[in-house]
């Protein structure tokens, strides 16, 4: 560890091996963690607040109606081979990710650009579609949006908006093709604070400081080594023996022990995400809103966070995490076992049943999910007399089960893509790809539409508030808690701040010898 500090190499637990290192194809948190070292977007993030600060663009203007953004690119922004980063490179990159042939999973992130859908989904050629991305000159980029989007600049920090080096993409024929070798060390050309220097699959990804980066003076680290360690226990062992500076997670059962014995190493950071269960509202018994409400009322969320998850999570009494982009919904879900019992009684009498049918609760295999499921199983048994059968499934099987809606009750989680309530609430629209509950409410759809076209914050929030109310009344879901990111971090890591999206711009991170010992 001493050696790593002298060498200024950060050893980073990555959690899992990213499927892609290509910003236009990436689809995971682990990919994000590597890509932000290698590529910089138009704007960058303040390390503490994540507010947009100048990145490749040194300044920008927004039109009065909030629809046109003009970015002025800095002249000294360079690719790691020395080429200047130009407005044309950005337009090229947008064209690439929206290229239907590329089949990028996150291309829809750019649908806010005017006419982007026409090119991406309707097959109209780029020039004919008049997509709202124009390079006015080499260093001026103008983006036109479909709707005023108050969180547009934050959106730009998602890797789908990142640039890729056009000559490299062309050289590897990667404009409309996946799985090319351009993302390997030696081929990878980026414009970020680091360059890719080594990649041993399933073992290590190594990046080194990029001397050509425009702000390389700010960068303190000489390099970062990312280790895709999947098991939380292995990660912890690695951390405790000084092999890692940071871990991706902590196994829930060890939180208590670490809290007592290593309070200076374990960190709890709120994370923009909700842990919840989905009901299948089209199948009995959850087709009846009373049963859904009863399960919600019989859920002691406080006990779950205090005695089961123990990571300082907040009980989820609404769906959108409070404070998301300034929006804090009213708490509507509560714990009231008496009310729950009477609702169930009413339901059973009406249906002429003695007890609830046996209910299957499906979740993907993981110690943490299992613990929560087992705890809830116990609660519902004692408060509702419900017999719950737990069924854990391997991840891919679980995903296809959810997509086919082959469940009555299933675990779920949602992590916001950007800091705005929209990233949470849009999923309960009728027929949304992530809805998967069968729940549909025309007023809800209408409210979201109104919010999208509204530029007044107060009015937007009132629409969101009504959405939350509809969720609480109809209970297509059972919110449990708001995520907390629990990690182990060495006190030698400085310039690392808790942020809602768990983003940590590496150029501000330093390693310093610390008085505290592990």
């Amino acid at each position, binding site marked *: 560890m001493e050696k790593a500090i002298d060498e200024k190499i950060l050893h980073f637990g990555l959690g899992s091996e990213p499927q892609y290192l290509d910003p236009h194809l990436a689809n995971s948190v682990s990919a994000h963690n590597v890509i932000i070292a290698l590529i910089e977007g138009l704007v960058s993030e303040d390390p503490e607040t994540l507010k947009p600060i100048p990145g490749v663009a040194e300044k920008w203007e927004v039109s009065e109606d909030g629809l046109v953004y003009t970015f002025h690119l800095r002249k000294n922004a360079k690719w790691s081979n020395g080429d200047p980063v130009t407005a044309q490179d950005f337009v090229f990159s947008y064209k690439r990710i929206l290229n239907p042939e590329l089949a990028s999973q996150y291309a829809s992130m750019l649908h806010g650009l005017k006419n982007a859908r026409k090119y991406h989904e309707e097959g109209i050629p780029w020039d004919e579609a008049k997509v709202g991305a124009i390079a006015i000159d080499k260093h001026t980029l103008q983006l036109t949006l479909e709707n005023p989007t108050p969180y547009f600049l934050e959106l730009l920090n998602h890797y789908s908006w990142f640039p890729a080096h056009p000559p490299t993409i062309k050289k590897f024929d990667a404009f409309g093709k996946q799985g090319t070798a351009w993302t390997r060390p030696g081929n990878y050309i980026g414009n970020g604070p680091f360059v890719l220097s080594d990649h041993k699959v399933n073992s290590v990804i190594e990046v080194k400081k990029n001397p050509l980066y425009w702000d390389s003076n700010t960068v303190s680290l000489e390099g970062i080594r990312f280790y895709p360690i999947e098991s939380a226990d292995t990660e912890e062992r690695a951390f405790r023996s000084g092999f890692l500076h940071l871990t991706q997670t902590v196994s829930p*059962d060890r939180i208590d022990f670490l809290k007592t014995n290593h309070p200076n190493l374990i960190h709890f950071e709120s994370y923009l995400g909700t842990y919840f269960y989905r009901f299948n509202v089209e199948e009995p018994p959850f087709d009846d809103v009373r049963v859904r409400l009863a399960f919600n009322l019989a859920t002691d969320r406080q006990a779950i966070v205090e005695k089961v998850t123990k990571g300082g999570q907040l009980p989820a009494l609404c769906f959108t995490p409070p404070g998301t982009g300034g929006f804090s919904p009213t708490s509507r879900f509560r714990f009231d076992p008496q009310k729950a019992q009477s609702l169930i009684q009413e339901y059973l009498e009406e249906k002429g049943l003695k007890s609830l049918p046996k209910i299957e609760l499906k979740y993907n295999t993981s110690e943490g999910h299992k613990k929560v499921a*087992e705890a809830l199983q116990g609660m519902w048994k004692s408060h509702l007399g419900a017999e719950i059968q737990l069924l854990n*499934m391997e991840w891919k*099987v679980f995903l296809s089960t959810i997509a086919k809606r082959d469940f009555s009750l299933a675990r779920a989680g949602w992590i916001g893509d950007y800091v705005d309530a929209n990233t949470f609430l849009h999923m309960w629209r009728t027929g949304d790809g992530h809805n998967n509950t069968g729940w549909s409410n025309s007023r809800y759809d209408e409210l979201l539409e109104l919010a999208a076209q509204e530029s007044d914050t107060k009015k937007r929030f009132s629409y969101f508030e009504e959405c939350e109310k509809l969720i609480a009344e109809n209970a297509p879901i059972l919110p449990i808690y708001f995520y907390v990111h629990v990690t182990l971090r060495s006190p030698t890591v400085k310039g690392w701040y808790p942020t809602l999206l768990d983003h940590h711009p590496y150029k501000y991170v330093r390693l310093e010898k610390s008085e505290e010992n592990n």
Partner: protein
Amino acid sequence: MSIENTKVQNLISSSTKSSSLWRDAWIRLRANRLAALSLFFFVLVSILTIIGPEIISTSYDEQDLNNTFAAPGSTHLFGTDNLGRDLFARVLHGGRISLAVGFLATAVSLIIGVAYGMTSGYLGGKMDALMMRIVDILYSLPFTIFVILLMVLFGRNFVLLFIAIGAVEWLTMARITRGQTLSLKQAEFIESARALGYSHKRILFRHILPNLIGPVIVYATLTVPAVMLLEAVLSFLGLGVQAPMSSWGSLIKEGSEKMDIAPWLIFFPGLFFSLTLLALNFLGDGLRDALDPKSAKD
């Protein structure tokens, strides 16, 4: 697998067929202190796991979130786990599952293997050559990998588990049975049975099958622990039984992650698992020695 194979091969060469063999074997087995002790232990564990969960007052899935990770003591003999569940109850319950998996999967392999091997050996000739060729080919399949693949791809399912494990283990059983049948076929009493015009069915079931029991039992005793280990491996990969049920494998897996904070969680299931495996292996060895007078006389 080949280790059991060679062990039993010794047996094959020296099989006898009188009923006094069993009495002699029993006497020899009792004289082998280790094997006798193992037998006793095994019977005890079986009774505990079969009857135990029914008579003890705590249930294996009863949680007490206020009493998690309690050390072994008078209220909880073996302590409690991460959800405050009684480990003693869980170990007993887990043993039931582990033993059930071990025995049922072994039974599956036994049925397939004996039927296949007996047919092959009895038919002989070209048919025998073909059937054994198939076994050879199957031997070169990476079977553990297939079991994992099956469990990953099609989800946990008890029946699938038995079939998958049974399918792996029957090959050796088939080889042993076939070898034994081949040598029995030449035996005088079979030839005389044939001369008397008995049907194939009668010869197979009345004359050959009873003489296969010795080696088959020995091999089965050794298969059970192998299966239990395989179940534990699957548990390690998160492919074991469904929560809140447990098996020794899944308990050990959970315990191994917490061995520095709650060592009893690994100690008790590990102890039961290892001792049972130990007992089964010693019992298998003892049975082999007992049924194989040649090796026993040293």
